[in-house]
């Protein structure tokens, strides 16, 4: 009987140890691996540390896309403020002017350096965080 209890205790301890380890790992990663989402107005107001990866969501401003080799520059707007973005690479197919976009990258001296531009399956996609309706076209 005692042996059975001892076994049970060991098992319980192992389980507790593993789950404690797991949970602390999870909390540790959660804290350092979050990407905060900003709209252009929020981004310009917020105090963002350089080297801190964030997400920017908004509309690609009409007529703002320029290309230079493989580098693309454009402006993202929430119809109040604009943020300039640079991206090196081939953007997803649904990336075009006057359409919604979410970008992952770094904010440095008023410029947003994009690491990745997210494509959406839906061509009518609009980031839900944009509270204002776009002007009718």
């Amino acid at each position, binding site marked *: 009987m005692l042996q*059975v209890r001892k*076994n*049970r205790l*060991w098992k319980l301890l*192992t*389980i507790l140890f*593993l*789950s404690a380890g*797991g949970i602390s*790992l*999870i909390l*540790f*990663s*959660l804290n*350092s*691996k*979050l*990407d*905060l*989402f*900003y709209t252009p107005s929020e981004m310009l107001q917020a105090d963002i540390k350089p080297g801190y990866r964030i*997400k920017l969501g908004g509309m690609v401003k009409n007529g703002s896309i320029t*290309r230079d*080799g*493989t580098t693309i520059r454009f402006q993202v707007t929430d119809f109040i403020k604009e943020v300039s973005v640079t991206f*090196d*690479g*081939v*953007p*997803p*197919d*649904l990336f075009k002017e006057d359409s919604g976009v979410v970008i*992952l990258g770094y904010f440095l001296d008023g410029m947003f350096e994009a690491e990745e531009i*997210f*494509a*959406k*399956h839906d*061509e009518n996609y609009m*980031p*839900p*965080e944009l509270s204002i309706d776009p002007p009718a076209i």
Partner: protein
Amino acid sequence: MIGEISHFLSLSAVLLLSLVLIFNLFFFFSKIHPNQLTLSMRLFNQACWLVFISFGMYVYLAISDDFSIAYIANHSNSQLPIFYKITSIWSAHEGSMFLWIVFLTAWSILFINSLNNNHPLKKFTLLMLSLIILGFLLFLLLTSNPFERILPFGAVEGADINPVLQDPALAIHPPMLYLGYVGFVISFSFITAYLLNGNFELQWEQDIKNWSLVAWIFLTIGIALGSWWAYYELGWGGYWFWDPVENVALMPWLAATAFMHSLFASSKSNVLKTWTMFLGILIFALSLFGAFIVRSGIIDSVHSFANDPERGLYLLSFSGLITLFALTIFAYRLPALNSSKLVVTGSKESFLSMNNILMITSIFSIFLGVTYPLIIESINGDKVSIGPPYYNTIFAPLILIAAIFIMISVDALWQRSMPLRRFFTAIAVPVTLSLISMYLIWWTTSVFSILAYIGIFSGLLILFSYLLRVINNLFNKKFINKGSAIAHTGLGLLFFAVSMNSILSYEKNLNLAPGQSILVDKSVQEFSFNDIRVIKASNHDVISAKVSLLQDGREISLNPQKRKYTTRGQITSESSIHATFLKDTYLTIGDQLENGSWTFSLKINYFIKWIWFSAALMVLGMLLTIFKKKVS
């Protein structure tokens, strides 16, 4: 007219299922007479057939371009080939829910009729199955009716299916995935029935073992197909994005894998019975949670269907109630259940239990990753998202511990403790071989990343342990469980391939004019952009580039395209892939610049084909387990 009949048949199914439910509830506390059971079985079977016929008619409506039905008008087009007219049914919410229900019904009718009428659990299983089907049918008809007409005049032409969905892999990916998801309704209902019945002398594992194995296989194929499609069709060159919707498919998969393992243990040596039951409930709860996440639009994801709070509320309350019901009986019965044998320390079951705990931990971490943004947003309004770095850090250590347990368990015995001497020989050789291989990998590639090397090491440990086992089998005639060996080799290969892919793959963005050729790097010595032209196809225009590469001394030609679909004006990229044993050369074409040159994205993806090959190995291993001859 056919649309109305089809709609009517579905409504009749609701009526019949309600009858079955009421009839069975009447006998909830008393014994059911075989004749009464036969009657309710007959009603149930008829209800199922009504669902099938209704769906069959719906398929006919889609093929015959009945654009007076709003759903078909919005998602199909008369120009589509018949194959895509049919698959357009599951390209959006309403139709895919219909398909989901058809599969749910199909699994249920097959399983319930395979049970003998004298089977003590048949009454309650029937009750659970009809309750679940009824819940989903009502969900379909009340909140997402696929039969809705456009009145008074139907559309003349359909709006067409989204072009990225016009693809064979994607056409069969949802059906496979759904077959997997809803397949676990069987283990769920059977376990709930067992708990309701309250006679715990009964053996229940064998009755659902093969059903769950088949569901697991479908789920695995479904997930693998989805990732393969994302790789070659979306043009990002990635295979897994830790997108919320991928995560909600991975959680039931992990739960199902844990369930299969503990089911083997409990049917083999009568241990972990209670735990297995809990997992059986958990898989279905996670499948329902997945349906809720995907279909309520609560989380913004590439897969999300249109945002509809009403649907979300219905699904959340329905799945919540079902799960709560099952967990309540489980908790109520727990004291009586807790009599199964204890696991022997150092036996195969003990290592298997450890990995079960690890799988639950990973499910919990994914669950947290999926819901954390929602929690944060409701607390302080901050919008956050959780990406791959979170999951990579979580999974690397978990994978390592899991691999160590798998390695030890290869030589462990059922029900018996392993001698310490064998324990060390089991560890020593694979660890040494893995460390040597890791050094060789580092020496040839000279890239280092802690997380990736943890993954490589874990993969190699599993691969070498099974390699040793195979050698032992060949020369010492030691027993080997083929199914398990193949499936676990697949897992080891998966860890290895994913990690190697993450350190070796790279991407180059290029910009050149037609006729120009450039040097890219040591491996791709020449990249020549030969020609570009526009071709007209039936429902789209194709911009097709001809590129030839001199790669590793060999000439390859690639043909990346861009398609512009006429009906929706949507543009899609068709990547061009050249696959060799070790790597894929993956080329997509970007946009034309003002000076007439074009941008290209060249990705070299190492070991990427191995990822799907390893999924295939896992499926093969499980298949062998199903068809394995019973050892008496």
